[in-house]
């Protein structure tokens, strides 16, 4: 199997302001969000990052998407370093996370065209993909409605479509089904499987066990910024459900759940 992502000893600390220290009831000046993370993902697989709140999933994905730079370590996507060649990485990936918003003032149609321009997608390719994706998600019905007037689910569909506007081979999804009803969530997971069928590689973060069991090929469990376990989903869930496996691992690493 061809390796498309390799993460090497990734580290990220955040300096805490006095206010943040008080909010988090700590007197530590720095918070280690990601602490020496290493793993690889192969072409055509869906790799899940599973972890509790604050484990460092989003921080890891933001580093992979070149939004923030690691303090040490590096990650290579299709052989390009996120630290040294961020532009190359950016044009090859798609990234979906709640942090990235679309301007309320514009319509899905305008935004699709706008981001196609930013990625340098040729006009004919753009028209074809827009057609495909908009009808696939039913966006054509509200393609000319300003985002401000769309529901959360509709907006998430637009964000999803725009995150793959450049037809990337490597796609990073941070909690893609968060805040969606079961129907919309299913549209999203179906789309992920469809992308996988097209040979794309997907890395997604979540704390929803069933989502991992349903669509992921391999899963890495992150606790406190460290990788606590890494295996194929089928191997990990051989004896018991993923939830129980997680509790066992959590008990070993973090000293039990109260």
């Amino acid at each position, binding site marked *: 199997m061809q390796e498309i992502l390799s993460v090497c000893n990734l580290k990220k600390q955040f300096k805490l302001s006095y206010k943040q220290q008080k909010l988090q009831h700590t007197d530590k000046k720095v918070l280690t969000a990601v602490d020496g993370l290493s793993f690889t993902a192969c072409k055509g697989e869906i790799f899940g990052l599973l972890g509790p709140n604050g484990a460092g999933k989003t921080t890891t994905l933001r580093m992979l998407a070149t939004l923030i730079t690691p303090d040490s370590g590096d990650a290579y996507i299709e052989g390009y370093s996120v630290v040294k060649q961020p532009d190359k990485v950016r044009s090859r990936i798609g990234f979906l996370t709640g942090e990235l918003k679309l301007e309320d*003032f514009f319509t899905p149609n305008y935004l699709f065209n*706008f981001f196609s321009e930013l990625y340098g997608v040729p006009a004919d390719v753009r028209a074809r993909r827009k057609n495909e994706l908009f009808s696939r998600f039913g966006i054509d019905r509200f393609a000319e409605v300003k985002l401000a007037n769309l529901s959360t689910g509709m907006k998430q569909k637009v964000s999803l479509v725009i995150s793959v506007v450049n037809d990337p081979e490597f796609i990073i999804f941070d909690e893609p089904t968060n805040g969606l009803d079961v129907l919309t969530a299913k549209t999203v997971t179906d789309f992920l499987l469809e992308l996988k069928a097209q040979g794309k590689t997907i890395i997604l973060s979540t704390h929803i066990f069933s989502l991992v069991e349903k669509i992921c090929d391999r899963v890495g469990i992150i606790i406190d910024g460290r990788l606590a376990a890494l295996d194929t989903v089928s191997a990990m869930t051989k004896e018991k459900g993923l939830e129980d496996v997680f509790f066992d691992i959590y008990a070993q690493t973090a000293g039990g759940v109260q």
Partner: protein
Amino acid sequence: MKGAFRGMAAIIKKEFARFFFDRRMLITTLILPGLLIYVVYTLMGSFVTNIAGDGNYSVAVKNMPGSMEPMFAAVEQFEISDADRDDDYYKSQVTEGGLDIYVIFPEDFDEIIAFAGTSGYVAPEVQIYYSSSADGSTAAYSAFAAVLDAYEQAISNVFNVNTGGNYDLSATSAATYILSAIVPMVLIVLLFSGCMAVAPESIAGEKERGTFATMLVTPVKRSHIAIGKIISLSCISLLSGLSSFLGLMLSLPNLMSGVFDGVDLAMFGAADYLMILGVMLSTVLLLVAMISCISALAKSVKEANSYIAPLNIIVVVVSLLSSFLGNPSAPLYLIPIYNSAMIVTDIMALAVSPLNFIIAIASNIVYAALLVFLLTRMFKSERIMFNR
């Protein structure tokens, strides 16, 4: 390499679309400023005119001195008739309102004042009859008295002046003075508020709403984002500034009509207006770049506005300075904002030095370019763009 600039072009297009398709934004930053300034200044002008009297005054003059005739003739507001009937008739006319004022000069006024300054000279008396219960009459009285005062000062001057010409000349130079003192400051303040209306919203606002991050995950060069933003925001701010400027220039004749006999905007040629446009453009570039850099530091539009407030004060003070310091030397035209105000002052006074003009414009553009470079660095900085 057309492809390399596609992202920049898209960003410029998006900023324009954001602005021109938003009716509220269009009205508040493009139409309203010019309209408001025009209306306010015109109202102020008509207020001044009202104090001075509304339009024309009917004046009957007995024994109009030959030396003064051309002077009053130059003031359009006075409709002067020769008084050939007896005093009582005109006095009753003033009481009844048929006449605003009735003026009596001594018969040999010109001969008497020719001896002004010699021993035994008795100042002649000019009588102005008016009606204090009528606004027009009171206004006509003060206007007429003001002209006499001006004349009195002119003749007691040590220099011999052509009195008819003197009045005209003083009106023009006073108008020019007001133009060169007020216009630069108002213009720069207007440009600043034009920039304030769009730049913090587009930089700090996008940061605050999380749409900036979406742009940062795309492969568009950070320098292209910075240049694209500065170019589009400058264009929009310039339009807003032009709208205000138009309102200002159009209202000037109305504003000053109460004081002067009409200010002729035609005294500025196409070259002058082109130069003003050039100064405005370079000033806007610099202002937008400054405001954008400060906005990039802020987490929200509100925070950006509070950071920019001190800059606003500095800009007002610096642009005011230009009307106090006369004849600055060329190196002073390197001082940003001050140089723009100075050039506008020079243009208004019809005395621009091409060298100073070029120094001012070029230095502004260089400063703006340096700030664009700084802005690019800021867009690359995780601490600035993602600090919470």
